[in-house]
C-alpha cells in the first residue's frame, strides 16, 4: 500500500514538534525515517497511526485522502505499528494481547477465542514462528515480546508496518535475523517504515531514507543517491564533536572486587558473578536490557540483597551495608531513569545537586542545612558542566532531558568517590550532551576513578571501556579485553535466544 503524508504539522502547546513534513512510502519498500531524539520521528508516525489526531495536513492511502479518529481506523485500513515501548499487557496471555484491537465477537460481545486461536496458529505455522499462545507476556523475553508485536500485525493483515526503533532490544545476531524477516515482508509487497537513529542500519536495509531534524524535513532520498556521511551530517546539522580519548593506562590497584556474588534475578541462573575494577579503569557491561543488569547494579549499590559472596570496596566487604553507608564509603551512581531515580523533578536544582552530600560539613551544621553553600556549590556545577538552567533555585522539571542528565552526572562525578557506577548515561539525550558526558567520563577516568559502565549501546561500550563483560540471562560472560575484534567478540557473547523462536531466515512464509 502506498501511503503519503502531506504537510503534517503538530503542535504541543507552544512547541512545534513537527513542521510541515511530507513523506511518501511505497509498497514493497523499506523506508527509513532517521533523526535525533526529539526530531519528531515518533510524533509524525503517531499521526499516521491515528494515535495523534490533533494535527494539520493530509494523510493519503493509495492516493485517497483518509482521516482517522483513533488507531482503530488506521488498523482497519491496514496500518500497523510496533512502538518502541511495546504496547503489550504483561499479565495477559499472548493470545489475549494479539486479540486486543481486533476482537472477533459473537452477538453478545463475547470474544470467539477459539476461532482467533485457530487463525493465529495458522499464521505462526505459516511463518514458522514458535511461541506459546497461553504464556503470559510477563514471562517472555524482550525478543519474544517483539515477535508477539509482529504476530499482532500479521494477524491484523497490516499492509503498512511502522517499526519504531525495533532493533534497540535486539542483539547483533538477532538484528540480522530480524532484518531477514523485514526483507521477507518487503517481498510480500508490504510497506515498511523503519524509525531508527542508527545510520548503519539504514545503510544495511533501507531503500529510501527521510531525515528529520527539530521537527523539520531535511531530506528525503533514495539510498543510492546519498551516503553515510551525508546522512549523519543532515541528522546533526553540524560537525559531530569528536571525543578526545587519551586512553591512559590504569593502575594495578583493585577498587572494586566482586567475588562469587549470586544475584537474585527472574532468570534461573545461579551462576556466581566475579569481576574486579582497577583504579582508572572503565569496565563495560554490555547486553540487551533486561538481562539482569538492573539487578546487578541494585546489588552493588545496596538496594537488592545478594544471597552470597563478597563485594569488596577498597578491600572492605560491603555486602551487608545499606545504600547510605555504601555511598559514604565511596560508591557513586548515575542511574538510567533520571526522571524517577536520578532526580526529584519537583525540587530545585540545588536540592537535587546536594542530596548525596548533605552530611558534608560544608553543607550542614548538625541537623541544620547551610543553604548558601549548597547553592554556591550548585552554581559551580552548573558552570562546570555547562548546564542550561536559570540558576540553583529553578525547578528541575523545567530543564531539558540533556540538561537533566548533565545535572545527575555532575552530582555523581563531583562526589570524588573512588568508584562510579554509570547506567546508560546517554539514554534519550541529544548528540551534543552525549559527547559532553562521554568526555567527562574519560576525564574522571584519567583522574583515577574506577568506572563500571553498564550500557545497551554497543558503541558506547566499545569506545569508552578498557574491558567488557556481556550480561545474558543473569550471568556474566568472560572478560573481553579491548583489542582488534572487541566489537565482534562482544556481539558474539550477546548470545541469542532468538533462534529458538524464529527460523534462521527470520519470519518467512512457508512456500
Amino acid at each position, binding site marked *: 500500500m502506498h501511503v503519503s503524508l502531506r504537510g503534517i504539522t503538530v503542535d504541543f502547546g507552544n512547541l512545534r514538534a513537527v513542521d510541515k513534513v511530507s513523506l511518501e512510502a511505497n509498497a514493497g519498500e523499506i523506508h527509513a525515517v532517521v533523526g535525533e531524539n526529539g526530531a519528531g520521528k515518533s510524533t509524525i508516525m503517531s499521526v499516521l497511526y*491515528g494515535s495523534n489526531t490533533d494535527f494539520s495536513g493530509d494523510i493519503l492511502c493509495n492516493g485517497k485522502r483518509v482521516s482517522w479518529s483513533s*488507531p*482503530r481506523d488506521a488498523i482497519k485500513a491496514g496500518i500497523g505499528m510496533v512502538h518502541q515501548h511495546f504496547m503489550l*499487557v*504483561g499479565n*495477559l496471555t499472548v493470545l489475549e494481547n494479539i486479540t486486543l484491537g481486533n476482537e472477533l465477537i459473537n452477538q453478545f*460481545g463475547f470474544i470467539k477465542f477459539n476461532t482467533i486461536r485457530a487463525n493465529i496458529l495458522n499464521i505462526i505455522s505459516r511463518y514458522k514462528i514458535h511461541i506459546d499462545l497461553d504464556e503470559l507476556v510477563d514471562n517472555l523475553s524482550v525478543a519474544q515480546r517483539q515477535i508477539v508485536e509482529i504476530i499482532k500485525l500479521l494477524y491484523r493483515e497490516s499492509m503498512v508496518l511502522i517499526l519504531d526503533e525495533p532493533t534497540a532490544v535486539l542483539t547483533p545476531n538477532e538484528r540480522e535475523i530480524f532484518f531477514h524477516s523485514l526483507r521477507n515482508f518487503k517481498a510480500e509487497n508490504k510497506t515498511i517504515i523503519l524509525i531508527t537513529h542508527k545510520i548503519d542500519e539504514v545503510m544495511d536495509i533501507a531503500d529510501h531514507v527521510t531525515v528529520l531534524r527539530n521537527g523539520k524535513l531535511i531530506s528525503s532520498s533514495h539510498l543510492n543517491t546519498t551516503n553515510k556521511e551525508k546522512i549523519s551530517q543532515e541528522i546533526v546539522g553540524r560537525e559531530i564533536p569528536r571525543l578526545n580519548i587519551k586512553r591512559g593506562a590504569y593502575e594495578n590497584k583493585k577498587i572494586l572486587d566482586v567475588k562469587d556474588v549470586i544475584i537474585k534475578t527472574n532468570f534461573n541462573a545461579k551462576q556466581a558473578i566475579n569481576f574486579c575494577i582497577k583504579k582508572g579503569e572503565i569496565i563495560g557491561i554490555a547486553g540487551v536490557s533486561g538481562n539482569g543488569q538492573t539487578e546487578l547494579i541494585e546489588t552493588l549499590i545496596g538496594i537488592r540483597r545478594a544471597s552470597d559472596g563478597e563485594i569488596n570496596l577498597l578491600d572492605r566487604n560491603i555486602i551487608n551495608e545499606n545504600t547510605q553507608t555504601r555511598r559514604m564509603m565511596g560508591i557513586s551512581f548515575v542511574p538510567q531513569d533520571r526522571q524517577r531515580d536520578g532526580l526529584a523533578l519537583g525540587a530545585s536544582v540545588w536540592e537535587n545537586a546536594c542530596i548525596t552530600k548533605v552530611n558534608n560539613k560544608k553543607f550542614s551544621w548538625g541537623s541544620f542545612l547551610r543553604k548558601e553553600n549548597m547553592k554556591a556549590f550548585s552554581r559551580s556545577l552548573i558552570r562546570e558542566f555547562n548546564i542550561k538552567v536559570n540558576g540553583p533555585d529553578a525547578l528541575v522539571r523545567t530543564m531539558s532531558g540533556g540538561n537533566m542528565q548533565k545535572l545527575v552526572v555532575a552530582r555523581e562525578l563531583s562526589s570524588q568517590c573512588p568508584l562510579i557506577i554509570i547506567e546508560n548515561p546517554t539514554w534519550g539525550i541529544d548528540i551534543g550532551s552525549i559527547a559532553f558526558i562521554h568526555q567527562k567520563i574519560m576525564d574522571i577516568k584519567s583522574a583515577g576513578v574506577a568506572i563500571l559502565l553498564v550500557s545497551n549501546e554497543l558503541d558506547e561500550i566499545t569506545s569508552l571501556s578498557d574491558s567488557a563483560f556481556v550480561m545474558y540471562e543473569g550471568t556474566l560472560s568472560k572478560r573481553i579485553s579491548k583489542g582488534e575484534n572487541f566489537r565482534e567478540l562482544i556481539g558474539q557473547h550477546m548470545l541469542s535466544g532468538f533462534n529458538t523462536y524464529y527460523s534462521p531466515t527470520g519470519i518467512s512464509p512457508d512456500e
Partner: protein
Amino acid sequence: MIEDFLDPEFFSSIARLTTPILLAALGGLICHRAGVFNIALEGFILLGAFMAVLGSYIGDSAFWGALSAILGGIFLALVFSEFHLRRRGDPIVVSIAINLLGLGLSTYLLRSIFDVSGVFSHPNIHKLPTINWPFLDSLWLLDLIFNDQSILFYLAILSVIAFHYFLKYHKIGLWIRVAGENQEALRSSGSNPVQVKFLALLICGIFCGLAGAQLSISNVGLFVENMSAGRGWIAVVVVLLCAGRPIPLFFLIILFGVVDSLSLRIQGLGLPQQITEMMPYIVSILVLVFASFRRFRFSSKTHL
C-alpha cells in the same frame, strides 16, 4: 458452647451480613481492574442506602427504592468521573471528598427532607422481597444459608460468576483489564481508556448503590446516619487482597461474613458491642499481613 455459636441464626446471618460488602466489593473490583483507584466505596454505599429509603418511601415500593439507590450510586460515579477522569484530580483526593460528600449529603437530606436526625424509620418504607426456594426447604444447612434471602443476595452471587466470565471472555471485560494494566496499549489498539474507565465507574456506582439498598431496605427498613460504618473500607481491602479476581473475592468475603456472624454470636454471650464491632477491622489488618507474607499478588505499587 459450640451449640451457642452454631444456632440457625448464625448461618442465616452470614448471607445478611456479607451481601452489602459483596455488592460493593464487586463494584470496587471493576474499578480496580480498570485502573481507577476508587476508595470512595464507603460514600457510595451510604448515599445508596439513604436513596433507597427515600425512593422506597416516596415511590411506595421496594422497586423504586432499589432504583433510586442505583441512581444515587450513579450520581456519585458521575461526580468521580468528572473530577478524576475529566479534570484529572488525584483519585485518592477525589475519593476522600466523595466519602465526605456521601456522608454529608445523606445526613443533610435526611434532616432536611424527613426532619429527623439519627434514625429514620417509617411503615411506608418497603423492604426488598425475599425469595423462597421450596426445594431447599428440606436441606437444613443450605436452607438456612440460601433460602429466604433478599433478592439482592441472589443477584450478588450470580454477579460473582458473571463478572468472572465477563472479565475473562467479554470484549469490554478485556478492555477493562487492559485499561488497568497498560492504558497506552489500550489506546494504541484503538479504544479510549477514559471511556472504559467511565464505564467501570458506572458499574461500580450501580453495585454500590445496590449495596446501600441491601443495607437499608432489605432486613431493617430504616436509615441510620453513617450506617455503612466502614463496610466500604472493608470492601476496598478485600478488592486489594484478591487483586481484582471475582472468585477469590467471593471466598474472602465469606470469611469476613463468618467472622462478623461469629462476633455477633459472641456479643450475645456478653462481650461488649464495641469489641465485636471492631472485629472486621482487626481481621482486615491480620489478613493483609498474612497476605503479604504469603506473597499474594497485589499491586506492589500500593505499599506506601
